């Protein structure tokens, strides 16, 4: 009897990994929800004294953390440099990297009026899983601002049963590839130098 219970338990554990994935929210829904949340936060009436700006930026960064897999983004950006970083350095780099991206792109969106912005979500394209079995999907969208259409594709992966973005492709320009190219020649620089360089860019 005991053995049988154990066996059932065992089977459950083995299969368990794949069951939640089926019940999951599809990648485009996850993306849509987070993008809408970000727009709501950005649309909140401004505070003339600027007291709440910091609090708001923190909330935006939290949101960004929910939708982006910054560790994978940072890994892709560093390319072959990534392996030279120890675990703490990887974490430190990914952290600063997420701040740089959030800071640059949120400040760009600030003060824009979102009434003239609309986003069209197109059919999700599921990519072949990687060799290690990570599920991936491309969510193509079209950003329309003042009548100008910009194609933006979000490349997502499934991690811990939820979908996260690990590359953004704007007009065919992959953000990860772009950083990769920038870091390609940094192979002689120490990880410490690359981290402090990145931190120097943060306000």
């Amino acid at each position, binding site marked *: 009897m*005991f*053995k049988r219970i*154990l*066996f059932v*338990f*065992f089977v459950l*554990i*083995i299969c368990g*990994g794949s069951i939640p994935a089926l019940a999951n929210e599809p990648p485009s829904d996850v993306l849509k929800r987070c993008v809408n949340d970000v727009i709501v936060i950005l649309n909140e009436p401004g505070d003339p004294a600027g007291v709440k700006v910091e609090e708001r930026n923190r909330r935006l960064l939290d949101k960004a953390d929910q939708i982006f897999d910054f*560790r*994978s983004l940072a*890994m*892709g950006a560093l*390319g*072959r440099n990534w392996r030279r970083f120890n675990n703490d350095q990887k974490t430190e780099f990914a952290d600063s990297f997420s701040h*740089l*991206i959030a*800071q*640059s*792109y949120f*400040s*760009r969106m600030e003060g824009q009026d979102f009434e003239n912005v609309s986003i069209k979500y197109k059919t999700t394209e599921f990519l072949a899983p*990687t*060799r*290690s079995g*990570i599920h991936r999907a491309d969510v193509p969208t079209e950003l329309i601002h*003042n*009548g*100008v259409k910009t194609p933006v594709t979000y490349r997502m*992966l499934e*991690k*811990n049963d939820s979908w996260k973005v*690990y590359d953004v492709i704007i*007009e*065919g*320009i*992959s953000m*990860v*590839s*772009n*950083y*990769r*190219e*920038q*870091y*390609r*020649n940094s192979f002689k620089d120490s990880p410490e130098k690359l981290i402090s*360089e*990145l931190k120097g*860019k943060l306000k």
Partner: protein
Amino acid sequence: MMRYVVLILLLLALAVPAAAQEEFADDLFEDYVETGGSDLVPDPLYRFNYAVYTFNDKLYFWVMKPVSKGYARVLPVGVRTGIHNMFDNFLFPVRFVNSVFQGKFKGAGSELACFVINTTSGGLGATRPAQREFGLKNSREDLGQTLGSYSIKEGCYLVLPLLGPSSLRDLLGTVGDSFISPGNYLTYITPREASIGLMVLDAVNTTSLSRLGDYETLKQAAVDPYVAIKDGYIQLRRKRVQN
């Protein structure tokens, strides 16, 4: 005994996914080729290019940005969009001819229809009834893309004064296209100053519409802005050649 085996198996089943999580992503970017290989667009004129890049950068911050900002304050966005559309409309020959050169006859036809409709009932192209009412699409073709579609490579990277990033192939394309750009023939019917004035207006108008702020963001987010712009340009052009 059996119990221990099951227990060990259980522990393994629990531990393996956790361990796999961290190093999981080694192959995530396998299809992202490091462009350092045969794919790289060489930059033998780096020193010249970097100097021009610096010049363009200063020109933007010292001249284009303040002028465009002032200009945007005077003219409402609707008027500026109209002006932009008109300039764009008269580049029709470039897009049409290059669509034909690439055997894209459907695109060429749609381009011709856009031009006829927008020029006549769109106020010389200030508004775009062809796109709005008929759902027609422009085909953003130029000679650089045509040459690219004939498998001609970029050659080398170039930064041009005022015009920004380019390549040997695309510069050739720009020169070729200028022969079928109406703007080039304005000098025969108007004084030179007028056509220069129009070129400046186009540049200021376009900057006021889209580039203000974008360039700053790009520079702020980049670790190495020169490389970021070079790679961005190459990626964008390759994508357009494909389409």
